[in-house]
């Protein structure tokens, strides 16, 4: 029940528009979403990979047919995305494990203006940047192997 004098605070809600607006996202929030998106993407790929490799038991023809479908430029581009997603998920995941056990968080401080979170310090930001740089390097190496020929 609405209390007397209580304003309707729905005006403050941005809903999906606010959720999708990336401009106000801090680096921690970007890495939070990327960790989840890459995780789901990798699980979907893994299920598909288990299914595609099961064509082995169908014999050489079944295997070659599967390869014809997947070993294309688009298939290789998809694999480069898998390489990028798995590298980011791994590197950022290691950062998160360290963070969860308290490594790299820094000491808690008094909340003074402009209220920068002490947890998002240089070490945390560096961890996110290292994950992004490793992702780019792994994708370039993967592109070289998959699209550059033998």
């Amino acid at each position, binding site marked *: 029940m609405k209390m007397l004098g209580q304003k309707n605070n729905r005006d403050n809600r941005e809903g999906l528009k606010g959720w999708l607006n990336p401009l106000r996202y801090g680096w921690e929030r970007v890495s939070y979403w990327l960790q989840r998106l890459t995780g789901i993407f990798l699980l979907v790929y893994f299920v598909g990979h288990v299914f595609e490799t099961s064509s082995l*038991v169908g014999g050489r023809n079944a295997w070659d047919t599967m390869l014809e479908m997947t070993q294309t430029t688009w298939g290789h581009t998809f694999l480069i995305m898998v390489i990028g997603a798995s590298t980011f998920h791994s590197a950022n995941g290691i950062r998160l494990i360290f963070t969860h056990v308290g490594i790299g968080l820094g000491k808690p401080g008094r909340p003074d203006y402009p209220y920068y979170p002490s947890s998002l310090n240089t070490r945390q930001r560096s961890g996110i940047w290292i994950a992004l740089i490793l992702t780019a390097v792994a994708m370039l190496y993967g592109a070289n192997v998959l699209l550059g020929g033998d």
Partner: protein
Amino acid sequence: MNGISKLALKESQIMKIHYITGILALFVVAVHILMRLVVPYSSSLEYAHVIANYHNIFYAILLESILVLISIHGFNGVRVILLELRQSKIWENSVTITTIIAMIVLVSYGTRTIILANGLGL
């Protein structure tokens, strides 16, 4: 306390399993990828080469460990995401049971491939 409650792990224990399976998966997947890179990439995917990999018992064990580790890590990750979206006893139990069933189905299907390709089932 019923039987299921006695078996239930604490969320902190589940997260430890999540981290351990993630780190172990990193190592076994690295070996799996290296096996593709020790020979030219296209040759590594030839039927005879892949079957030879599966006939190697150590490689078959490696593949099985990848299957189990990533299934546990991946489906628990999905469970965590779904539990962040919504919280109620029915929802939490449904999500947990569904992800465990999906995990068992995927591991069973992948294990079948490994056993048949290894030649143990022929």
